[in-house]
């Protein structure tokens, strides 16, 4: 069994403080690096150069952060102040909580929950409310439309997401992330459950509101969607949350389908992060290749394609597991 972070600290509060510090530091650095990665990747795909300040353009992100921090935080006059102010915090908080759930290696894990998968899905559902608060509180038609779309989309894609996880849970016979990763001896589940893996990565892309499922913030239709009215670091929080969410879903996919930390030669954490970032690069690749789907097509795709496929997959898995 992995060691709990509580084992390293005598004091409960110290453990919590340390966890928060580690997660915050990781998420900030991660978001900055992911923005850099996305820019460079997009530039290479489009045969541009991308950011050039500093070595490999890395300093550009620091400048951008400074810019975001130093910008004036505008609170428009017509907004619903409570919702408007609470939304950026609320969208970021669940992500932080979720980061603590992942088993990074066989021995590195903050806390191994027996129902971590359910907890992860549950807490990531809070994101929807935050997006809704942002859209409704902004009191702007574009923001409201974006929020409506986001809520509808997230509800719809949660179903195939969960349905694609259930076969994995059944095969691993565990709801704990550590247990699922541990159960994948030799063959990762992506080979045994390719359809579930595909459905998961599609639904995960939709859950994080990234292209081609970025209709809540479709810039050619809704200007900026639910964060139209936000400026400065409040907008930065949405930005942060988007990239941190990518970490969450890709981490989940890594644990569920790619065997978590397992891999030859290299130590566990290295393998874990290699897999996570490979999935993130895949999601970025989607984004820079495909056009955006229309709202009703998105819904149709979820309900007419993904859900039936996931259900069929679930049924087949059940029968096969029963036969074995």
């Amino acid at each position, binding site marked *: 069994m992995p060691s709990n972070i509580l084992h390293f600290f005598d004091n409960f509060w110290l453990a919590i403080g340390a966890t928060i510090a580690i997660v915050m530091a990781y998420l900030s650095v991660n978001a900055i690096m992911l923005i850099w990665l996305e820019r460079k990747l*997009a530039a290479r*795909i*489009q*045969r*541009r150069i991308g950011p050039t300040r500093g070595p490999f353009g890395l300093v550009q992100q620091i400048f951008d952060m400074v810019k975001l921090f130093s910008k004036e935080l505008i609170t428009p006059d*017509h907004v*619903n102040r409570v919702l408007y102010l609470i939304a950026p915090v609320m969208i970021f908080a669940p992500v932080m909580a979720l980061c603590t759930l992942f088993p990074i290696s066989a021995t590195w894990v903050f806390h191994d929950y027996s129902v971590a998968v359910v907890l992860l899905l549950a807490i990531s559902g809070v994101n929807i409310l935050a997006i809704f608060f942002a859209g409704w509180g902004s*009191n*702007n*038609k*574009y923001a*409201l*439309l974006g929020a409506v779309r986001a809520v509808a989309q997230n509800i719809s894609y949660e179903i195939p997401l969960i349905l694609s996880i259930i076969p994995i849970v059944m095969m691993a016979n565990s709801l704990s992330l550590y247990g699922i990763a541990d159960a994948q001896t030799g063959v990762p589940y992506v080979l045994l459950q390719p359809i579930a893996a595909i459905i998961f990565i599609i639904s995960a892309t939709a859950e994080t509101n990234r*292209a*081609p499922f*970025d*209709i809540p913030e*479709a*810039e*050619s*239709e809704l*200007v900026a969607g639910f964060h139209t009215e936000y400026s400065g670091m409040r907008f930065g929080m949405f930005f942060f949350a988007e990239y941190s969410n990518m970490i969450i879903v890709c981490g989940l996919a890594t644990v569920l389908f790619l065997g978590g930390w397992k891999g030859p030669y290299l130590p566990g954490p290295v393998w874990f992060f290699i897999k996570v970032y490979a999935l993130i690069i895949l999601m970025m690749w989607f984004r*820079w*290749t*495909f*056009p*955006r*789907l*229309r*709202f*009703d*097509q998105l819904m149709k795709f979820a309900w007419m394609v993904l859900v039936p496929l996931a259900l069929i997959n679930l049924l087949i898995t059940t029968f096969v597991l029963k036969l074995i």
Partner: protein
Amino acid sequence: MASRFDVVQDAESRDTYYLNMGPQHPSTHGVLRLKLHLDGETILSVDPVIGYGHRAHEKMAENRDYLQFLPNPSRVDYISGMIYNIGYCQAIERAMGIEVPERAEYIRVIANELNRISSHLLWLGTFLLDLGAFTPFLYAFDDREKILDILDRVTGSRLTYCYGRFGGVTLDVDDLFLQQTAEFCTHFKTRFALYEELVIDNVIFQERTVGVGVFEPDLIQKYGVSGPCLRAMGQANDVRKDEPYGIYDRFDFDIPTQMAGDCFVRSLVRMDEMRQSVRIVEQAVKDIPDGPFIAPKVPKRIRPAEGEYHFCVESARGNFGIYIVSDGSDIPFRLKMRTPSFANMATMPDVMKGTLLSDAVAILGSIDIVVPEIDR
């Protein structure tokens, strides 16, 4: 407290609301304003509000002589400025009966068709941008940049050309230009595969465009739809074939047509038009004769005889007509420009009715409007 929540209200009905798309909006390509009456995401009616980019080009024509108006037409449609500029020159030439040397005619055809390709490439990029794909935009601009470089060498400008002169063009083209053009044609023919694989064949692109924004046949009569939008409705209408101007009757090219009239076939028609333009350019480059590039004897004062003159050319967006009323002086009494974007955009209330908000963006992108051309 109550007033804070009344944004989503509409005077007549509580279920519907108005949404301003524009004048400052990422997908109206300029300062077009569409007043959308929405029920949820469904469009009940569209009210295009134009004139934000009005620059009084037609009035300007009444205040300056024919030569001084020369830079203006390319500003009307800055994306295919060459066609407008040369079209204006041709209109005056026909009015004055100026003979244009052979070589100048060929240069004009090459420049026009290159400009048409660059205009269509820009359309491809921005259309895909409207649909949410960013990468094809830059691929299209890569090719467009090559055209601009070629044209830049002889015309000196990259966007708003003032290359044509009454009776010819400003500068002769050299062998390097012809060689570059030929090279571009060979290169560009290989790029179609990329656009097809990345864009046209893509299932998401087809989902977004097939059956969306269908132009009903009665719109032709009602609004005077022209250009690729008309050809996508099965009408093989092209000024270059119907009433050939310049030397277009010498070239072998087809008019691509499609039947469905939706956003998807409009894209197909434009892709095919680029192929045809490449064909024309290749023939012109092969056949271009030697000789003067501007007529030796151009009257110093342009004074068309009293009367009315009409001349139309096929621009990248459709039928561009110039109507001149002359009172015999060297200043036009009235100059009217019939711009294709205006007519095509006027169909929007009929076409967009009942579609979704996302479709509105796709339709607007697919008819390829240039807002200064609408406003003039």
